[in-house]
């Protein structure tokens, strides 16, 4: 009887092993763990949904909008204060600006510019920062100290002012703003990646790669960089809103993109100067900007909590 029970249990266990129906036994990778933790964070998930909706609106909205962002609606031009106010009937859902241009279309167009600057700028920063930091940290020695000194010097430069000086001298170009933003934002990322690399480079798998005759550039590319990507992701998700803010700041001061193109900062500046009559010019672009910034910040926080090994 006893034997019987034993063999039953054994059989059952063997069956389970075959079919693999025991979730407790399954190993979870870092990324699976992180994903689970991220999706448990309500603020982060809500932000992700909102941001996706926002992105879709900005990208697809111009096809839905009854007006283009640069066309003047002559019908409302004589009385912006009443005819140009937001209404579903006139097709100007967010109202028009002083020149009779549709605020909804302009907000979407401004969003395209703002998000493009934010995301592309962050990509540039990630690319430069990761490579710079990984090379500096992996090579060490004199190369490292020279590379770090360069960062120290650049770090103490008041970049906001340097960027505005660049814009003053060379005129306003969206490309110039990209370059300026890219040049500013990779510094702290390079520092973070360098620190991570230094702790990675004495690990066994790097030794193994070295012993196996892998060349230094390949070690950095294949073994170092993939292992720092998690932290880089967290950082860049917080970098995007910072860059959007930076571009908006420049545009608010009138030093960013040029007419008829626009960005959220420029729209807010325009709205602010007319806010006592046509408040909608200020409120809608400001709301879009603030909501986007909130979403990115919550997602960044969520990612950080999800990937932070201290929490596990």
């Amino acid at each position, binding site marked *: 009887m006893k034997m019987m029970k034993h063999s039953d249990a054994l059989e059952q266990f063997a069956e389970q092993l075959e079919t693999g129906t025991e979730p407790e036994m399954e190993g979870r990778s870092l990324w699976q763990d992180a994903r689970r933790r991220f999706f448990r964070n309500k603020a982060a998930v809500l932000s992700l949904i909102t941001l996706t909706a926002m992105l879709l609106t900005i990208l697809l909205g111009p096809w839905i909008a009854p007006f283009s962002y640069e066309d003047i609606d002559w019908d409302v031009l004589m009385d912006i204060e009443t005819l140009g106010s937001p209404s579903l009937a006139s097709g100007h859902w967010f109202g028009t600006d002083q020149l009779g241009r549709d605020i909804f279309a302009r907000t979407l167009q401004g969003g395209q510019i703002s998000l493009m600057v934010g995301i592309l700028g962050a990509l540039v920063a990630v690319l430069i920062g990761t490579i710079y930091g990984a090379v500096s940290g992996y090579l060490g020695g004199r190369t490292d100290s020279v590379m770090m000194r360069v960062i*120290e*010097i650049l770090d*103490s*430069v*008041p970049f*906001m*002012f*340097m960027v*505005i*000086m*660049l*814009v*003053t*001298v*060379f005129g306003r170009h969206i490309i110039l703003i990209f370059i300026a933003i890219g040049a500013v934002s990779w510094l702290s990322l390079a520092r973070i990646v360098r620190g991570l690399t230094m702790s990675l480079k004495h690990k066994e798998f790097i030794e193994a790669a070295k012993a196996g005759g892998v060349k230094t550039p390949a070690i950095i590319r294949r073994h170092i960089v993939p292992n720092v990507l998690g932290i880089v992701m967290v950082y860049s998700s917080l970098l995007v*809103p910072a860059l959007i*803010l930076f571009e*908006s*700041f420049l545009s*608010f*001061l*009138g*030093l960013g993109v040029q007419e008829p193109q626009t960005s959220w*900062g420029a729209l*807010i*500046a325009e*709205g*602010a100067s007319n*806010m*006592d009559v046509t*408040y909608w010019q*200020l409120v809608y672009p*400001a709301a879009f*900007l*603030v909501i986007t*910034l*909130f979403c990115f*910040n919550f997602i960044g926080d969520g990612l950080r909590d999800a990937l932070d090994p201290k929490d596990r």
Partner: protein
Amino acid sequence: MLSFMTKRLLVAVPTLLVIALVSFLLMHLAPGSPFGGEKDLPPEVLANIEAKFHLDKPVMEQFVIYIGNLLQGDFGPSFVYHDFTVTELIVQAWPVSLELGLWAFLLAVLLGGLIGTLAALKQNSRLDYILMSLAMSGVVIPNFVLAPLLMLVFAVQLGWLPAGGWNDGQWQNMILPVVALALSFVASIARIMRGSMIEVLHSPYIRTAKAKGLPQSYIVLRHALRPALMPLVAYLGPAFVGIVTGSMVIDVFFTTGGLGQHFVNGALNRDYGMVMGITMLIATLTILFNAVVDILYALIDPRIRHS
């Protein structure tokens, strides 16, 4: 300690030189001459002007002259306001920015510290959540959104405060700019303060103080506050720079006549002299402030000094 301080300050010198060189070269790369205005000047007059501004000399020599002038506090001529030198304009605008910045700084540190401490003491309570979501909003909402909204409510709708201008620093004129400038810093400081205060409150010596039966206010003020302020010191350097750059928006929006307004106007009018002068001033201040913060930090924390 002395060697740490000198080392730290010596690093600042080449940095400043690099910034000066870069901005100087940028100005020379700039397309067009600052004097190629509406009408063509006779060649003799142009030559005279160029001689006056040393534009006829080789670039390196011009740079040496420029640095020499800078060291004497001479930022050169403004290319737009011909009757003023950049130094004169800076001397005019600096007190405004300083007064605005100092009030904002004071407000930010006091209010931010208070909010952060309160939230830390009531950690995970409803009060904590409310304060921290307010702080999150303060961090996220940029001052160029906040300033118009404040003005819309308090100046346009309610009419309690003037909508702009400086009026020789009347307090009514200062309230809105100071608040608009300070709020995001209040929020950041509150968040930093809460974090560090919670960490300090969980440390063993605070538990000992509690076990001794000391009243909470005494524990917070005498034992917890000072170590909790440490991370704030590191934040003060960047915060200073932030207040100065943030004041660009505030100065322009509230037309206070501060440095930020001159800087932005200079940039819009391509007044190279003005833009470069203010950049050099801010760069010097930034670098000096960062050095001071590092030294302060080393003074407080011996581990940094000896590493």
